């Protein structure tokens, strides 16, 4: 029974992948961070704030450039149109990462202290194995701290996948076998009353889902608490939730209570990321 609740890489539902962080390795930038969670690896480099001409001169402008180390190569033959669509979709995912990181920087960095300046961020995605937005945001946060850019708070980003609960539990199995006529009604009542199962830090296979149980993928950026306590978070700064295709036809609904549960789980997971950041701050002996 306990083995059935593990994921395919051996983690529990609320367990994150191994984290690794390296800072100050790119010497041509003011600050840089190499951050990975599992196989997802992102390099973020920060330049500036530097003087530049822009329209809104009262505060610093933000430019985020997202690149990928590996892109889908071009193809010929009958698959050319499909491969070209995948390339366009990958480029649009880069634009989505750009918008998400720009919103995170505008929320964190005190841009009003640098009028007539531009803060440039170059983000390179070395490997994408799920939870890309949260890994990129964590790498960006470390790069900003490494560059010495004044920030209002530190943030931690967490990705979560919501699944419909399993209906193969032994508690419900004898009731369905005994009462066959009331089985769909009982199963619908059970599926509506049970909360959604949440997977923390999903891999790419878990994000893609099986088409039936996966309801939604979400990424939350949570700020540090003001009093510095380790048991709570300061609130959600940036969030993005998207329901998965092919699952809403099978009754996978997402309500406000499920969103509240996801944010609560993300707040508890952010505490471990903040403690990881603090441990990395200790200099080597």
């Amino acid at each position, binding site marked *: 029974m306990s083995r059935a609740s593990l994921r395919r890489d051996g983690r529990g539902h609320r367990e994150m992948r191994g984290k690794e962080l390296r800072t100050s390795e790119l010497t041509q930038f003011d600050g840089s961070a190499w951050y990975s969670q599992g196989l997802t690896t992102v390099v973020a480099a920060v330049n500036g704030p530097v003087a530049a001409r822009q*329209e*809104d*001169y*009262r505060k610093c402008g933000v*430019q985020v450039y997202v690149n990928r180390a590996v892109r889908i190569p071009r193809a010929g033959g*009958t*698959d050319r*149109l*499909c491969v070209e*669509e995948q390339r*366009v*979709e990958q*480029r*649009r*995912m*880069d*634009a*989505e990462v*750009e*918008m*998400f990181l720009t*919103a*995170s920087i*505008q*929320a964190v960095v005190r841009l009003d202290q640098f009028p007539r300046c531009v803060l440039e961020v170059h983000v390179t995605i070395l490997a994408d194995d799920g939870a890309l937005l949260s890994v990129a945001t964590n790498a960006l946060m470390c790069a900003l701290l490494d560059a010495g850019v004044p920030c209002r*708070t530190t943030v931690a980003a967490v990705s979560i996948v919501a699944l419909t609960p399993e209906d193969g539990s032994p508690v419900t199995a004898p009731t369905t076998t005994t009462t066959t006529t009331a089985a769909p009604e009982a199963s619908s009542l059970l599926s509506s009353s049970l909360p959604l199962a949440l997977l923390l830090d999903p891999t790419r296979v878990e994000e893609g889902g099986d088409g039936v149980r996966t309801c*939604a993928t*979400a990424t939350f950026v*949570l*700020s540090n608490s003001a009093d510095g306590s380790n048991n709570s978070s*300061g*609130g*959600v*700064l*940036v*969030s*993005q*939730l*998207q*329901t*998965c*295709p*092919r*699952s*809403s*036809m099978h009754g996978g*609904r*997402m*309500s*406000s209570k*499920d*969103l*509240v549960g996801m*944010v*609560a789980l993300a707040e508890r997971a952010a505490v471990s990321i903040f403690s990881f950041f603090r441990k990395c701050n200790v200099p080597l002996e």
Partner: protein
Amino acid sequence: MSLPPATGAVELSSFKQHVIRLLTQSKRLDGRPFDSIRVPHILHENRQDTKINRVLASTLYTDDTGTCVNCIVTGVFGPPPPQHPEEGRLTVEVTAPFFPGYSAFQIEGTLHELARFVRSTIISCLDLTELCVISGEACWVLRVELILMNADGGLRAATLHAAVAALHNLTLPKARLPSGDVVESRCLCFHRIPVAATIGLCGTAGSMQFLLDTNAAEESVADVLLTVVIDETDGIVSFLHHGRFPLLLPHLTDAIDMVASHGAALRSAILKSSSPPQ
């Protein structure tokens, strides 16, 4: 997230100061109350005589303050995607040809993110297996082209409503495959219909004020921006939010409830089919 507001001859910073002064006096730029939405108007263009251009639907989305989005749906036959051979293909393109003064890099990133948002929201409400003709061999390839003629805030909601209005009850015509098989006519249906709204949040003098359905000027001065997409059962289809200060959980649920209270009005306005007189 949104394109900068069109301020005309007024400087952008002075325009923002003017909007902030109005918001502190509990006023909005267009005189609306804080909890009202701009009701959209959908015009369907009937092109029964010009099916030769592969145009299956053409809608024009407008509201009372000048947002104008044109949505054109074209369909051809093509191979299905290799990952899901039993499904059809849907592509979304967003262009903004009438915004030449802004930075091209900024506009391109915004339009790419818009196209991805519209496509991922639509395919989570639409069954793509209805576009399949022969599993693994042939499918309908629908191309949704959204042209932003005028934008006044709420870009995600406007483009999503225009695309949903064009794709709802879309008739895939009777056609012939290159192999000679005849494909029967089919009607495309959503199993849930998404409606969206953008909510701004201003923290003035210590109190939070929600601005429902923000325009471009309010989006440039708002502290927090939320985009909420819900379906008929008030379930969340998509949820995006970013801001200058962290939000706690009651603010998120209040924003969802605010959009849910106007969901029926938005849905009836989008699905009402009105055609111009011939």
